């Protein structure tokens, strides 16, 4: 019943499989003609620099979604990490701060993983709980104050760039390559697919399903912390509410990319398409002088249209 209908020629298949990227290209090309600035290097590097930060977490979110899971708390982990990173950076320097923050991300992720894999709580609700709690924690620790850091090494790092491309996209690319590679080419990655595809079958095939359910949350915690660090280093400040739309953003780009929330398929390479898509849309709206509420309105409509368009052309769930 859920099979694809693949018969009206190669073009159709190509179209079905690539509706979103094709839309993206059409959209991007028309933007080039509408507004020259769009294709200027300054603007492109700006798009890249911006989406790279959230993109890091989006990769991990995609992995979790492939494993059939989901994490709302990454938004709070992100905010908490910006705070922790800035606090520790001022106190101990960049490298220790980096390590401490990553460690805290791993620990928080592991807690989520524990709740989901061991206690068998539904991820949505477990992470809704931790999201609330971690945000509260970040508020308590900072007394809700934004924290800034004036560490000079960090300043130098944040200013470092190659032709306008800062260090963040480089980190992002490394993260993406690692994710794509291990998801495709390691036992570890395939275990994630199998677990998300069918938990029971994977378990019966001797795959340590609990481990994978656990580990995707650890990865998410780590990546959310890394994103937080990148963010903190870019603006030299941290605050609990930062990144509060991160979780929804990550799920959105994952689904737009074409990874199904049911788990077991899709991939990080697809999410890149989703990230590009959102990046280009946001940028284009600003370039087209669409402001404030109108921008939001258009964004929502675009989101709905893309998913509808993709569903209709590819007949995702043709019954």
């Amino acid at each position: 019943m859920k099979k694809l209908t693949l018969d009206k020629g190669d073009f159709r298949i190509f179209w079905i499989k690539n509706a979103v990227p094709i839309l993206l290209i059409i959209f991007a090309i028309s933007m080039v003609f509408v507004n020259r600035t769009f294709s200027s290097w300054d603007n492109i590097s700006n798009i890249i620099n911006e989406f790279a930060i959230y993109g890091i977490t989006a990769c991990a979110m995609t992995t979790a979604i492939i494993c059939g899971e989901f994490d709302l708390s990454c938004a709070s982990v992100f905010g908490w990490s910006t705070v922790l990173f800035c606090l520790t950076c001022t106190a101990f320097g960049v490298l220790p701060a980096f390590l401490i923050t990553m460690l805290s991300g791993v620990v928080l992720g592991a807690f989520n993983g524990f709740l989901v894999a061991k206690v068998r709580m539904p991820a949505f609700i477990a992470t809704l709980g931790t999201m609330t709690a971690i945000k509260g924690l970040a508020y308590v620790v900072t007394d809700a104050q934004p924290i800034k850091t004036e560490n000079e090494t960090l300043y130098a790092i944040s200013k470092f760039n190659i032709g306008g491309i800062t260090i963040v996209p480089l980190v992002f690319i490394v993260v993406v390559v690692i994710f794509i590679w291990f998801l495709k080419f390691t036992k570890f990655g395939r275990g994630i697919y199998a677990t998300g595809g069918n938990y029971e079958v994977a378990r019966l095939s001797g795959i340590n399903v609990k481990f994978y359910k656990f580990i995707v949350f650890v990865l998410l915690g780590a990546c959310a912390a890394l994103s937080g660090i990148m963010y903190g280093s870019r603006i030299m400040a941290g605050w609990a509410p930062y990144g509060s739309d991160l979780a929804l953003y990550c799920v959105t780009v994952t689904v737009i990319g074409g990874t199904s929330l049911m788990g077991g398929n899709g991939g990080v390479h697809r999410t890149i398409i989703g990230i590009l898509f959102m990046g280009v849309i946001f940028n284009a709206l600003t370039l087209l002088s669409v402001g404030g509420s109108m921008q939001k309105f258009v964004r929502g409509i675009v989101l709905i249209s893309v998913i509808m368009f993709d569903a209709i052309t590819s007949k995702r769930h043709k019954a």
Partner: protein
Amino acid sequence: MKSMSIRKIKNLIRSNFILIVIFLIIIITGIIESNYLSFNNLLNVLRQVSVIGIVACGMTYCLIGGAYDLSVGSIVSLTGVITILTINAGVSEFIAILYGLLAGLGIGITNGILISSINGRSGEAFIITYGMQVVAASIALFPSNGLFIAGRVPEGFFKFLGQGVMPIVIFLSIAIILQFILSNTQYGRQMCFIGSNMDVARLSGVRVKLNRVTYFAISGLLSAIAGIVLCSRVTSSNPTAGTGFEMDAIAAVVVGGTSMSGGSGNVIRTVVGAVAIGIMSNALNILGITAYHQQILKGLLIIAAVAMDILNKTIKNREMEHEKAYTG
């Protein structure tokens, strides 16, 4: 025999964890703060949870039917803005309420049609209702530009909706009606099938698409009612009033014990979930706990409640296996 009764007590505690937590919170707070245990305060709490509770009732239907509705918060805001603006324009309050309800219903139906026309599963529902959340929120901002609008509300029906026990009456009646429909009608049964396995429902000749549209429509309509009650209580509207309601509503539903995977659930337990969260935050407010600490506790309560629920089910299963196997 003694171990038997201890086990029974343990069971009792486990299966009524939420109620016991509520009870403990009430007792402890009552001891510390004498004003707490007043009838007025009880009414306060119920009034406070009634808005989110009404939204949560609609959300329960959506979750049982197998999808999220993330647009509820924006619908609450938008209906508020529409109703108050209409009343302020001097139009009859009934018409204003009607406009509000129509707006909520309209968004709900749109959600439903979009999702069911593509046979969307939870993934598509997630994105589409999230998109709708963004759209509705921005529409709510247009007329007011983000400003809160004080209502020039005459004494009358609209004001009456938010006063005294009215919000509570509305909330509880909605919950009872919805639960009754869920467990006693064809419609409710079909909802469980659709939520459990859409393909089975379709191949059993159930009108899946139409039914699914109604879940979102009901959720939209109830959010609109919640929005109107909210405005009536505060006699003003705030275009961002419903921000985050979707998560609060889902939390109430799940703390109540409805599973996220669809196919089964209970609206009355959603009421318990909503009231539990409300009582906790009221008690913490009264005990003078700061907002940040409250967040930590609220998060932990959600986790504990659901963990208990799961533990309870596992243990029950295991015991049933033992008892029946050896005695029967």
